[in-house]
């Protein structure tokens, strides 16, 4: 009995250990590779090397790092703020205002989740070309602002929002936008935090759409720069890894800063 429990625990830990290894190894490999030369990386070296500074130096001479980071940060932050503002309003509206058409419209919104981006790409591109927005950062942000997934996420969370709060606020004479701004937003802040992490990550890592829209070296985001470095006939993998690390840091940072709220937001905002 005791023995079988012990072996069960052992099995559990073995599994957890394996899972931990699988998720940590790529990061480990990324960091190790950033300190090695391309030749060592190809040779499969798995220990720290001494090429870290050389790789950083090369990355900073080949890439206009401040400009690229400014581009990425601008796009990711603005798109995230806009997305959350628009989609949380929609989620709030869908849950609070009862009408016959509501669920039909909501189903239509959810239906858009099933359309792959590849199918929308060409019509979107034509729209942007006609409005003269090609090669601008606005063109990257606009299509992401009304996000069906974030609307869904906010509506689901809003279900836990006590309607008594809204009723009480109404009795006190608050208008709807005031209820939203002064009651709903503070109460739902962990939902907002979680949504921020999700949307920021998606926008920061966004690749296909910026690739289609951006046309010049000056407007490129970090994902495009890393892709370009990695696709050389003889990529300098050490330099590529520096780029990958730098591209990963902001999402890691955002996640760790908001980790507590993120977990709360996932469990449900209102206690």
């Amino acid at each position, binding site marked *: 009995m005791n023995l079988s429990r012990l072996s069960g625990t052992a099995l559990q830990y073995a599994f957890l250990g394996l899972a931990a290894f699988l998720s940590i190894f790529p990061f480990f490999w990324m960091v190790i590779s950033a300190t090695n030369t391309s030749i060592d990386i*190809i*040779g499969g070296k798995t220990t720290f090397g001494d090429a870290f500074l050389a790789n950083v130096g090369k990355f900073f001479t*080949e890439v206009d790092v401040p400009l690229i980071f400014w581009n990425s940060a601008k796009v990711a932050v603005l798109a995230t703020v806009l997305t959350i503002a628009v989609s949380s309003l929609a989620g709030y509206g869908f849950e609070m205002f009862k009408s016959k058409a509501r669920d039909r419209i909501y189903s239509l919104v959810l239906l858009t989740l099933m359309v792959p981006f590849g199918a929308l790409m060409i019509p979107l591109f*034509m729209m942007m070309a006609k409005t003269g927005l*090609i090669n601008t950062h606005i063109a990257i942000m606009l299509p992401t602002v009304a996000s069906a997934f974030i609307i869904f996420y906010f509506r689901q969370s809003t279900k836990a929002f006590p309607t008594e709060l809204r009723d009480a606020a109404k009795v006190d004479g608050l208008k709807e936008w005031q209820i939203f701004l002064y009651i709903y937003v503070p109460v739902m802040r962990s939902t907002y935090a979680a949504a921020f992490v999700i949307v920021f990550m998606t926008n920061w890592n966004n690749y296909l759409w910026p690739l289609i829209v951006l046309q*010049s*070296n000056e407007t490129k985001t970090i994902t495009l720069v890393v892709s370009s470095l990695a*696709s050389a*006939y003889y990529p300098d993998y050490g330099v590529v890894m520096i780029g990958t690390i730098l591209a990963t840091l902001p999402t890691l940072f955002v996640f760790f800063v908001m980790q507590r709220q993120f977990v709360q937001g996932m469990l449900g905002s209102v206690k």
Partner: protein
Amino acid sequence: MNNRTILSRLAAGMFAGASLLASTAAFAGEVTVWCWDPNFNVAIMKEAAARYTAKRPETTFNIVDFAKADVEQKLQTALSSGTTDTLPDIVLIEDYGAQKYLQSFPGAFAALSGKIDYSGFAPYKVELMTVDGTVYGVPFDSGVTGLYYRKDYLEQAGFKPEDMQDLTWDRFIEIGKEVEAKTGKKMLGLDINDAGFIRILMQSAGGWYFDKEGNLSIENNAALKAALETEQKILQAGIHKPAAGWTEWVNTFTSGDVATVTTGVWITGTVKAQADQSGKWGVAPIPKLNVEGAGHASNLGGSSWYVTESSAEKDEAIDFLNEVYAKDIDFYQKILTERGAVGSLLAARTGAAYSEADAFFGGEKVWQNFSDWLAMVPAVNYGVFTNEVDTAVTAHLPSLGEGANVDDVLKQIASQAEGQIQ
């Protein structure tokens, strides 16, 4: 009086302004170029641009680098949506995909017949950018192939450089067995999930996945059959070191584990990067298949420049490509020395860099040899679906090693390829 002076001055000023406008209006635009690889195509294009602006300072260049797949994706999106004003003036396209773009989007690229002297380029490079007798594009880098071999290993096994000339693949395999017996080294690295080796062999016999008219040609394709048979013989003889993926394949020879490499000339830089192997390498023509029309010259990879028809700077872009890529021999010396790029302009061989003996290859004039082979690469029709058929071939390579009948494999490849093309 006073008024008249003012008027005449004004008129003179306007005239001067107008003539200034007229003189710059000839060529004053910005030429935008899309290409990939910052250390190769992008750097080479910057060199070409610098040479052109030295003569015509009013022209400026905007060279944008994207990943190769990204250039293709952007090109495809802009062309399919018909928003051609978003296209660059010049774009780099991989040779295997050229016919796909030229045939799928007729009128999208500028016809250059009559504007460029194509007789100076390697014929196979011109053929791959020709549709119905009209040539589009300007040939750029070549993947002319060679057999790179370790002189030291082969000498240990009793073979001299003379023995490596004019080989057949059967003889190559025999030598491989000797080399392994005497030195313990494998003869070549082989990635079973990459059909590049098959493509080299097939084109060396003037064959491709498509016939001259561009129709799929698999089952009765003698060159393809001979190529598959050769790969099967190599796999069964066990003279290869298996490699999974590109980096592992490169590692087979940089680490000194294999005695030969058969691939495009662009590998030279990687081979020479191993300074401690200097003097140990030689380059011979690749072995020959045992079919009619087979030779010792072939190609792997390569790409070329195309001008978009909708470009506002079309004439300027064509003039630029013509002045540098079709005429400037010194330019080709520089990109060979600095970037290891072998262009497809045959006259480039008359320059200093091409005539130099290379100490790394024991003083051989390797570039003269490559230039000889470049002119002999058989012209084939790369067709519209090379990459699709290549996937079908790759899927069936592992079964060759298990001893599958080559005719059956050809049948399976044909049916899968037909399915993918439709």
